[in-house]
Structure formats: C-alpha cells, structure tokens
C-alpha cells in the first residue's frame, strides 16, 4: 500500500476504525449525552453500568484487545484508540480504560509469559495462564470488570508499587494456594465498578495477584475526585486472599505493559475530548452575538481557535503513531507513547480551558458541560504520567540526559 510511508506506519483511520468510533458516538448521543453524565456525577452510581453493558455487549468494546479464541474481538490498539476518542468526546462514565485496556494488557502479558496449561500438573486447579485466560473470557463480554490496583497517576516505567505487601499465611492457605495481602492503594481509576482487582504487591520477589473485590479483607472507599466522570477510589487490603498471577520480571513486565497501554489509550481519549471541546466552542461563538456581531468574528478569538485546531491536528498524529506502534509491537513504542501522552495532555487541557473561556459566563456554570470536559482533561493530564513524567522518560529514551 503506497499510502504508507516507508519508515512510519499508517497514521490515518481505517474504515473499520472510523465505523467503530461513529457507532460508539451515536450510541453515546442516544443514551442522553453529557446532560445525563452531569446528573450522574452527583448520584450514588457515578459509573453508568447499563451503558457499559451496552457498549460491551452490542459493540464488543470490552473485548476489543482480547483474542478471538478468548471470546474477544481480536482487534488492536488502533481500534481501541478509536473507541477511546469517541468515549473521550462524551466524557462517558464507563470503565473502558481500566478494564478493556489496562487490566486486559496486564492479563495478556501474563498469559503470554506464563507456561502453557498443558505443562501444568494434571489436576492443578489454578495456573496463572489459565486464570488469565478465564478472566479475559469473562471480561470480553462485560460480565466481569477488572482493573489494575495502581494509582491512576502512575506512569509507565515507574518503580514497582510497594504500598501493598504479602503478609504471613493463615491456617489452611497452604492447601488453597492463596497469599495474604495487606496495605492500601490510593486514587485508583475504574475500581468502583470492578469486581476483580489485579494487585501489584511488594515481596521477594515482587508479584502481581488476582483479588476478588468481594473477598473478606478488601475494602473500597470512593474518593471525591476532581473528575467525577471517572471517580477514583482508595483500596485497602487486610489479609485479603490473592492468587499469584506473575512474579519477578514477569510481574514488572505485566505492570509496565498495562501502564503503557493506559497512557497510549488515554492520549487518544484526550484527542477525542479536545476535538469535542473545539466543536462545542465553534458552534457557540458562531451563534453567540455581542456588539451586534457573532463573537466568533473577533480576531482575538479566531486566532486562538486556529491555534487550538492546529494543536488538535498535531495531537491526532502523535496519538495515531502511538496506537500504531502498540498495535504492531514496534520497538519505538515507548518513545511514541511518551510523546503522545505529553503532547495530547497539553492539547486537551488547552482545548478545555479555551472552551470554558470562550463560552464566557455560561461556561462557568454547573449546568453547562464545559466543566466536565475541563475536569476530565486536567485529571487525564495526570493519569498514567504527567507531561513532565513523560518528558523525564524521554530524556533517557532518546539520549537527552539531565544535567
């Protein structure tokens, strides 16, 4: 295909990716749009489980990254990123990022690294690979929602979390094969609607455990979050039973795969959010009259909107490149993801801030959705690593060392 550069992957949207984003966009609009999202932020159920079930069931979004043999769609990060753009445009309160991307990436890493089930001793009830595959199958149709028990702010490449550690066994644990986890994790995204947690725990060696949210000793406390469309929660573990999924380098690898995937898909969400902020603002400044003319005819606004559009165009290219690199396991993926997350974070915040400012007084009211986008944009800029954290990562990745 001659449209593709010789050294860079296809940065455009395929027809499939476009169709997925369009279908998701119309579904989200049909289901009440941002007005409903706003009402939900002050309810007991900040996540929209009904919406998530529809997205997971009808559109197969929960299992996009899961192989077909495990009940998923067998799609790639390109499709996942297209879906994230549509979800970001609607600030949809669904656990797509936490379950269908981050937890899925960790489990896929576990499944690929663990010895296959045929080599396990006959009659062994639990093997990591089998557990990962079973869980992926149940996540693929949305019947189970999982998330990684790591702070939303954790950046790819950061040190293995040590706030949860392996405690001494209880009587009978040797027979059931469970480990006991103790500690806390604060500010976890998409854990509120999750029924399964993937918990990184400190020990010798470090390891990743599978924990049922309903187990005794697991507690979650909702956090009053800056972004209530993706409400965080604090998790605590008090001798909670966990099953080992991966340990040592395999655990670190799974964690890093999860955080890298999270950063890349979040960057795509930021592109979708920024584009929607720009579209809302354009519609408003064309209609709103002051001084007997549309406010969008003033050059002071026109030039700033041009700059927002330029920034969104640039961000889209960065996000597409990160998606393409992850989709094919390109060796440039780490650079691509850090470039995309650093750049798209700034674009989304710029677009949301300009959206609010150019709406004037109405933009500062609770009833107008501009604040939902601003809060999501600002929170997203911290999620899976601030721009600064990604610049620091790039310093070593591209050999521009600190003083």
């Amino acid at each position, binding site marked *: 295909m001659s449209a593709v550069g010789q050294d*860079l992957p296809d940065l455009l949207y395929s027809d499939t990716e476009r169709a997925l984003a369009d279908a998701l966009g119309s579904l989200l609009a049909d289901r009440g749009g941002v007005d409903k999202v706003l009402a939900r932020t002050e309810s007991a159920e900040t996540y929209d489980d009904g919406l998530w079930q529809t997205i997971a069931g009808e559109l197969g979004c929960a299992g996009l990254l899961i192989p077909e043999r495990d009940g998923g769609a067998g799609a790639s990060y390109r499709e996942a990123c297209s879906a994230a753009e549509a979800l970001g445009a609607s600030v949809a309160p669904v656990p797509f990022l936490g379950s269908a991307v981050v937890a899925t990436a960790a489990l896929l890493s576990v499944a690929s690294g663990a010895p296959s089930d045929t080599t396990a001793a006959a009659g062994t009830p639990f093997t990591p690979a089998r557990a990962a595959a079973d869980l992926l199958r149940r996540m693929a149709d949305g019947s189970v929602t999982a998330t990684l028990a790591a702070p939303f702010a954790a950046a790819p490449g950061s040190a293995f979390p040590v706030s949860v550690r392996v405690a001494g066994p209880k009587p009978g644990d040797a027979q059931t094969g469970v480990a006991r986890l103790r500690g806390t994790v604060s500010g976890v995204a998409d854990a509120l609607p999750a029924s399964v947690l993937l918990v990184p725990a400190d020990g010798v060696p470090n390891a990743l455990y599978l924990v049922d949210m309903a187990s005794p000793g697991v507690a979650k406390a909702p956090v009053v979050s800056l972004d209530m469309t993706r409400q965080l929660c604090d998790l605590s573990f008090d001798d909670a039973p966990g099953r080992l999924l991966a340990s040592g380098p395999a655990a670190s690898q799974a964690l890093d795969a999860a955080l890298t995937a999270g950063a890349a898909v979040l960057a795509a969400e930021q592109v979708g959010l920024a584009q929607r902020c720009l579209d809302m603002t354009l519609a408003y400044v*064309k209609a709103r009259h002051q001084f007997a003319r549309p406010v969008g*005819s003033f050059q002071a606004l026109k030039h700033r909107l041009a700059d927002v559009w330029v920034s969104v165009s*640039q961000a889209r*290219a*960065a996000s597409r490149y990160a998606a393409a690199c992850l989709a094919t396991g390109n060796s440039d993926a780490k650079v691509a993801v850090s470039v995309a997350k*650093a750049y798209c974070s700034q674009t989304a915040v710029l677009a949301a801030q300009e959206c609010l400012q150019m709406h004037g007084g109405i933009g500062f009211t609770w009833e107008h959705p501009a604040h939902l986008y601003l809060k999501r944009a600002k929170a997203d800029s911290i999620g899976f690593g601030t721009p600064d954290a990604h610049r620091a990562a790039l310093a070593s990745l591209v050999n*521009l060392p600190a003083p």
Partner: protein
Amino acid sequence: MTPEELRERVRAFLAEHDPHEMPRQDFLNARFDAGLAWVHYPEGLGGLGLSRSLQQIVDAEFAAARSPGHNAELNAIGLGMAAPTILAYGNDEQRRRWLRELWTGREIWCQLFSEPGAGSDLASLATRAVPDGDGWVVSGQKVWTSLAHESRRGLLLTRTDPDVPKHAGLTYFAVDMTAPGVDVRPLRQITGEAEFNEVFLTDVQIPDADRIGPVGEGWKVANATLMSERVSIGASRAAPREAGMIGAAAATWRSRPELRTPGLHDRLLQLWIDAEVARLAGERLRQQLAAGRPGPEGSAAKLVLATLNQEISAFEVELAGGDGLRYDDWSLHPPQHALFYGRGPGYRYLRARANSIEGGTSEILRNIIAERVLGLPPEPRVDKDIPWKDLPR
C-alpha cells in the same frame, strides 16, 4: 496502471537510456517525454495521468539507477508553484513551452508578488501593466524575491484595471527576467546577507503570449500559486527524527554537558516533543494526500514550523551561553542559497524570524484556518466595493 507495471515501464526506459552514457540534459528531456517526470501530470506534459502516490515508485527506480537529478532543490518555486499554476491556468502552448524547461531544470523561476506597499494585503498591489500593441508595458517595484538573480522567468502579478475593486483588476504574467527594464538588486536582511532581492520594473515589455489566465483574473491564478506555496513550504517528504533545527540543538546538548541546566533541559524536551509531533503530523498529511484524501491540515504545517524554528533557534542561542553573544559573519555576500544549517545558532535565530512572515504571515494563516477550515465569520472587508484607485494608501 499498477505499481508493478509502472516499475516495469521505468526499467524499460532505463534499459534504453543509460544515465551514465547520455548527456544529462538529454536524459532528463527523454525522461520527461516518456511521462516519467511527474506521473500525476497529463500525458505529453511529463506525466502519465496517474495518482500522485505512484511518484515515489518512479523516483526510487531512478535513484537506484543513479540517474541525474533535475535541480529540484534550487528550483523550488519553478516546480512547486510555477508548474502547478501553468498546468491549471496556462494554455496548451504555454504548457508545452514551459513545463519541460521547468522540470528538467533548464529554467529557474521566481515569484514577483509582494511589493513595498502590498504585503499581507497582496491584492492591493500597484505594479501597473498597460496594453501596448500586441503586448503590455509594465512598471513597478517588487520585493522579497528569492532567486530573482538566477531566474529565467518570474511569476508576475500586475494591476491592469485601477477603476475596479482591487481583486478584480489584476492580471498574471510570466515575465522574462532578462528583458530590458528588469533590474534586480540584492536586499540586505537582518542576518547581514542578501538572500532575497528587490526587483524594479521600468517600462518592461511583455508579449501577450506570456499572460497566464484571462485579463482581470490574476487573483484567481495567484491563489493557485499561493496554495501550492503553502503546501510546498509546509509539508515536504517524511523527514527522519531529529531532522531540521532540533537536530542541531540535540547534538549540542549531547556533546557539551557543561552547558546543561535543569531549566534548559525541560525546554529542550518540550521542543523535542513538539518537533517530533510536527514530523508525525507532516507524515500524516503526506499519507492523506497519497490516499487521495487531502485534509485541511496543510495550513497548520507552515504555522507550526515557523513557531518551532523560532523557539528552537532561540533556545540554541541561550544554550550556547557566552558563545551566544558571538555571530559568525555580518558581511554582505552576493545572494546565494540559504544555508540554514551551515551557520551558527545566532544566524538561525535571526533567519527564523522570517519564517512567520514569508509565504503568508502567521497572522494571515490563522485567519485562513479560522475562516476556511473552522467556518468562522470573515474579517470585515472595508475595501470590497471601492475602486482600487480610490483606496487610502
């Protein structure tokens, strides 16, 4: 034609025309006549009427055979602006007369648009063309003209009717730069050198056969030229990572640890990311064009590049510390090709100031994006219905 068929055709051509045996100009002429110059141009005019995306196949085959180049770098205006304009608005005789000379590099062309009194408001220009027998007589002054001293012809925009509003009274010519009355003088810039010229036109006679497009429709023709200019300045082919100015800054950072500070480090990383994203956006634009889905993103490319060059070169001067106070050479050299990378950071810093002025100021580009891409209301046009001769100036 499939890519494989095209590749075969190039190989067949090369089998008959050995680039190492034939004189350079003969080889280029033959390549043009075989339709293997620019394949998206029509047959008989150096092309085969194919998709632009197939050009890379042809170029790769000729490069692999170590065929001679056609002076494309020096002739950026001739190839990037004159040729598309001639193709769109020239008559058959003009296309036959000029396109082969342009593509084979026999003729370098320049652009005579801007005037001291008409910069961003190009349509207000004052250079007059008056009918005279079978042709025209032209007088006026043009500025900011690169390559004027090396050019065979210049794309010239003139006023032929001062009694109608400004856009309506313009006519477009390809003026012979060697004609009597054409006086090219170097114009010295803030860098000390004279990369551009001013061109004085005094009673220059132009045959009507050198007029491009109808009388009074020069604005439409000029717009075709300007749109090509923005595409050719903004998005060339996919560049490798760290191509352009960021490469120089990164190289200094890597080789001179004693210059590093925390503040400069963060700025460098921000600029590195911006440069990398601009590179990816340029490639995305190229892919859109190749797929036959040109997007409006082209207008962003030049704006981004101007800001980026200015910020990176400013950073470089600061990174140099005490050495940033030195300048390599203020002396006036005869006009020559811009040597952006062969000179010091101080030169790059000063030269980059022009990036947001030449080829459309960044302010005009933002207007264009706001109005044509985003659909925002146009600027008030107070001169719209007034005859040009009555405008205040």
